[in-house]
């Protein structure tokens, strides 16, 4: 299932003194099976863009096509399409409301009108995917969990709808390093199992490690797309957009400036480590 944005423009509060253009003429296609990272400075329109992907916001002009079908066409069941594109908002734990974890996760599937057995299967599978032990958590109140656990419950609530595309708006914001690694690991697993993933992120290191493609936004415009390698090699463009290249890439750069013979285009700590240990072994044979 592909999602295509065609010349999408979004204007908030059109016709009032508070009018502001959040998105300007954005064209972007999200391909099946990719892991797209959406990056950009605060207020560049990422969150607005993300809400167009499942029809929560309607573009002021332009089209959003899901599988070639106009999301805002006349005979489109938007609720149905919305369930194919799972959207995880920023701080999704603030949307929890049920008495128990299992009931909360079941909210989405219930709205889809599934049978009790299917709902139960989906709740169990979503919890397993989010590394939440069913025995331990299913009957607990979501409000007595830790922040990271609540976040995983909230994401499980979206996964239980078994969307073909999962869109996440800063899924790791405000989590400790352990909680972050956990969420990112789960996302990698989901992607490997074939879910298309769109992730908004401020961490270029996470983007370098996970994404297959990066889209860079600045002031409501899409200014670059490409593989992490392509995008991160354009350091000037990144800095103009108010962003940095990954830590590993910067370390690599300053090492190269000091004469360490490292190749260009190393963006993850893992890559850098491999090359550095190879160099070490060369220099210290024994």
């Amino acid at each position, binding site marked *: 299932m592909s999602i295509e944005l065609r010349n999408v423009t979004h204007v908030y509060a059109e016709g009032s003194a508070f009018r502001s253009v959040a998105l300007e003429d954005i064209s972007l296609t999200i391909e099946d099976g990719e892991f797209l990272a959406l990056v950009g400075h605060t207020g560049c329109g990422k969150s607005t863009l993300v809400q167009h992907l499942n029809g929560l916001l309607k573009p002021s002009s332009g089209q959003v096509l899901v599988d070639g079908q106009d999301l805002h066409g006349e005979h489109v069941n938007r609720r149905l399409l*919305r369930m194919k594109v799972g959207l995880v*908002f920023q701080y*999704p734990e*603030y*949307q*929890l*409301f049920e008495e128990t974890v299992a009931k909360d996760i079941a*909210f989405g599937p219930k*709205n889809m009108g599934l049978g009790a057995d299917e709902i139960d299967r989906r709740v169990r599978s979503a919890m397993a995917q989010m590394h939440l032990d069913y025995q331990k958590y299913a009957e607990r109140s979501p409000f007595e969990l830790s922040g990271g656990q609540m976040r995983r419950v909230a994401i499980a*609530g979206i996964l239980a709808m078994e969307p073909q595309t999962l869109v996440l708006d800063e899924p790791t914001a405000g989590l400790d390093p352990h909680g972050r690694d956990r969420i990112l690991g789960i996302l990698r697993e989901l992607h490997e199992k074939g879910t298309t993933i769109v992730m908004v992120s401020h961490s270029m290191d996470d983007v370098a490690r996970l994404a297959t493609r990066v889209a860079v936004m600045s002031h409501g415009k899409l200014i670059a797309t490409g593989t992490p390698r392509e995008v991160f090699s354009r350091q000037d463009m990144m800095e103009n957009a108010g962003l940095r290249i990954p830590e590993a890439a910067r370390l690599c750069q300053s090492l190269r400036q000091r004469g360490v013979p490292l190749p260009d285009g190393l963006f993850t700590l893992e890559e850098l480590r491999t090359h550095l240990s190879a160099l070490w072994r060369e220099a210290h044979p024994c």
Partner: protein
Amino acid sequence: MLKNITLGQYYPVDSVIHRLDPRVKILLTMAMIVAVFLVRSLVGYALLLAFVYLVSRLAKVPFRLIIKGIKPLRFILILTFLLNLFLSAQGNILFQWRFITITDQGLRQSIHYSLRLVFLVLGTSLMTLTTSPIQLADGMELLLSPLKVIRFPAHELAMMMSIALRFIPTLLEETDKIMKAQMARGADFESGNLLRRAKAMIPLLVPLFVSAFRRASELAMAMEARCYHGGEGRTRLRVLKLTRPDLWASLAVAGLIALIVLEGIVLPKGWLL
């Protein structure tokens, strides 16, 4: 969805009227309300209308925006008019048909009552359009502070008012966000009968209350961290001072009231209502 709601109806421009001391504006509005009840003839209402128009020009607020304030009141207006028209039995009969009787006094009364209502709204919207909610709260606090002698919590009341006002946009934004998040999970807020719709609000209201309580406790903590301990000995950033324009405004309203009183005395009774 909820983006287009403006807080109160404050019209943010800079003008002489906007810069008036909020205390003066509150008191003058009250004086004007009294004046509305002193009017005896249509001439008086014409005076009031001219005054409202003049102030709106000075305040750089479009006149039609002030007139628009009457719109939500139209049913009450019509009801007031009709009730007074049909239920008043005194005076000379103008029209009679079966049980319906219209008298000249009834007609006069219904016109007076509805026009009074209209001018009450016009007068108060003139104030709320030109005074920000925070300024209003400030003005109220100072006007009520003499009552502290009898342990009336003027400061606390004003603080609660400004906090409540401050949080309206925040909570609206939050509602919008939670609504969207639940819609992303297939929630349907729009269809179904009353009971179903009420039930559909639970996924919205529970998170909203949780977050409102969280925000309240965070705000309390932040205020204590900055040594807030009530109004005792607290100074203010914007000290309210009476200025020349405040004097002019008071004189203008005094003049208006004088004219209206004069109109009641000079014009013979029953002339133009």
